[in-house]
């Protein structure tokens, strides 16, 4: 396998944007190309578009060639849209990594996008429920919030996780997103604000939930040879892991023990040749506050059941054991499904180049990971990045 590096990253401002799907694509395309001034567009030989549901959000299929139009590139090697619900963006990066590592591509653009705010919000809610088994589970009115609410219910019951610990995750991530001009939510909030916010699905309240957000993000990956010509400070893709445990509720073995996440982490760390103690910075999939707490545990940052204590002790803040979600996470940045996994990679890339605002800069990060879950936490996808080859 060839070595692969991230050589550029960029994103558009996220939020309830007065902009269409294809305008978000153009903005993120410009951002990433502006970040790679030495790269001729003609060198981009492959394109992977992370998009969960342009079919319904933008009534558009065959989106990868449309993105090529919007960005003005003409890939000659590989092109595809990747759909893996909330992990669609990371799927794009994983395929680009694979294509370059295998020698099929030298320079690949990964662009993730979702336009979720439409005139009728029920459209977005309906689309998102179909991430679950629509005929047998979503038909009951189930969607992500009730699922993660039950995960929180079980985690509280089995491990004594508290309402306040959930709130601290939101407080931390909104604190970080207030330093991020691209984030949907730019005002810091306190734990008490979370507890005063409207109930969505008990025990989860509005500020326990990531936002419905419009956004796009992009990275460029390159082979070692090309990476060294393009930048003095590439960020290397060191490894990856992924694990699947079905979709239908009959296969939800546990709500608060996510075995497939633990397995994905084991594969990812093994392929990268790292151990968990090497990780300085992690972008994890905090679609809900409870998911970040369970992520601490299954990623091995703390023992099973100690995720609540981990946030309470400040171990996921800068200066703690692992700085988690420094860009603000999904809670602070919002969650445009296809863009999230790529924006997380942009954060690791910029952290390793010391390009983020000082307030959220992790001192000298050498190893970082990005994690996305998708569906009812049935799939976990993890990428490992390193400043050193």
């Amino acid at each position, binding site marked *: 396998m060839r070595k692969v590096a991230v050589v550029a990253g960029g994103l558009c401002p996220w939020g309830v944007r007065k902009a269409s799907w294809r305008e978000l694509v153009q903005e993120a395309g410009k951002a990433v190309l502006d970040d790679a001034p030495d790269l001729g567009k003609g060198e981009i030989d492959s394109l992977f578009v992370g998009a969960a549901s342009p079919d319904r959000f933008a009534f558009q299929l065959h989106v990868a060639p449309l993105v090529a139009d919007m960005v003005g590139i003409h890939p000659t090697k590989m092109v595809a849209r990747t759909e893996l619900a909330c992990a669609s963006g990371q799927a794009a990066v994983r395929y680009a990594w694979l294509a370059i590592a295998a020698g099929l591509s030298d320079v690949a653009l990964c662009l993730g996008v979702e336009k979720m705010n439409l005139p009728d919000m029920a*459209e977005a*809610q309906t689309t998102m429920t179909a991430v679950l088994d629509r005929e*047998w589970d979503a038909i009951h*009115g189930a969607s992500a919030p009730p699922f993660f609410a*039950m995960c929180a219910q*079980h985690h509280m019951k089995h491990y004594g996780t508290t309402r306040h610990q959930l709130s601290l995750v939101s407080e931390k991530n909104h604190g970080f997103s207030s330093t991020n001009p691209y984030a949907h939510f730019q005002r810091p909030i306190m734990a008490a604000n979370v507890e005063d916010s409207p109930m969505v*699905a*008990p025990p989860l309240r509005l500020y326990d939930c990531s936002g419905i957000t419009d956004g796009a993000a992009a990275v460029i990956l390159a082979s070692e040879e090309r990476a060294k010509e393009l930048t003095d400070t590439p960020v290397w893709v060191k490894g990856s892991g992924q694990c699947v445990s079905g979709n239908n509720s*009959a296969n*939800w073995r546990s709500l608060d023990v996510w075995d497939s996440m633990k397995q994905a982490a084991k594969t990812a760390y093994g392929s990268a040749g790292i151990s968990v103690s090497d990780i300085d910075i992690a972008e994890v999939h905090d679609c809900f506050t409870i998911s970040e707490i369970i992520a601490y545990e299954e990623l091995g940052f703390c023992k099973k059941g100690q995720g609540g204590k981990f946030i309470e002790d400040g171990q996921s803040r800068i200066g703690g054991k692992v700085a988690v979600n420094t860009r603000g996470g999904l809670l602070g940045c919002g969650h445009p499904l296809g863009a999230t996994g790529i924006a997380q990679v942009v954060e690791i890339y910029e952290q390793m180049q010391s390009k983020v605002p000082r307030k959220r800069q992790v001192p000298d990060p050498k190893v970082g990971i990005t994690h996305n879950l998708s569906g009812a936490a049935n799939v976990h996808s993890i990428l490992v990045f390193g400043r050193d080859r």
Partner: protein
Amino acid sequence: MGKKRSDPKLVLPLAMDFCSPQSEDFTRISRFFDELRKGRFMTTKCKKCGTLSWPPRVVCPECQSDKLGWVSLPKKGKLWAFTELCMGAPGGMEQDLPFSIGIIELDKIGLRLLSRIDTPFKDLEFNKSMELVVVDMPGDKVFFRFKAKRSR
């Protein structure tokens, strides 16, 4: 003045019906719905390896045999997890808010499945006894939910 145009509000292609076609023209498991209509709750079981599947299948996910038979499922179970959706319902369900959702562990066989629960959230607790109810769905279709069993 020209003729007034029809409502200019953007109408996106509507969500496909949550309830897929249930008749034998569209699915090979139409028997599930025919039986449900009569109050029977069934699924498929592999005649070769004995694996019980949920939801019903046409090929066994364990041994890939296509010789499957129909068996009855328990219509009673215990509440394993539960919550209530208070906002953000999918299209066509907004008028039902708030409504309860839970995971039921069916008696005897231990199969757990998600269901809407026709009992108010405040009346739910872990391990509460639940029973199946059959509900009419738009377009002459049927589906199931659960509700708390009335205590004697």
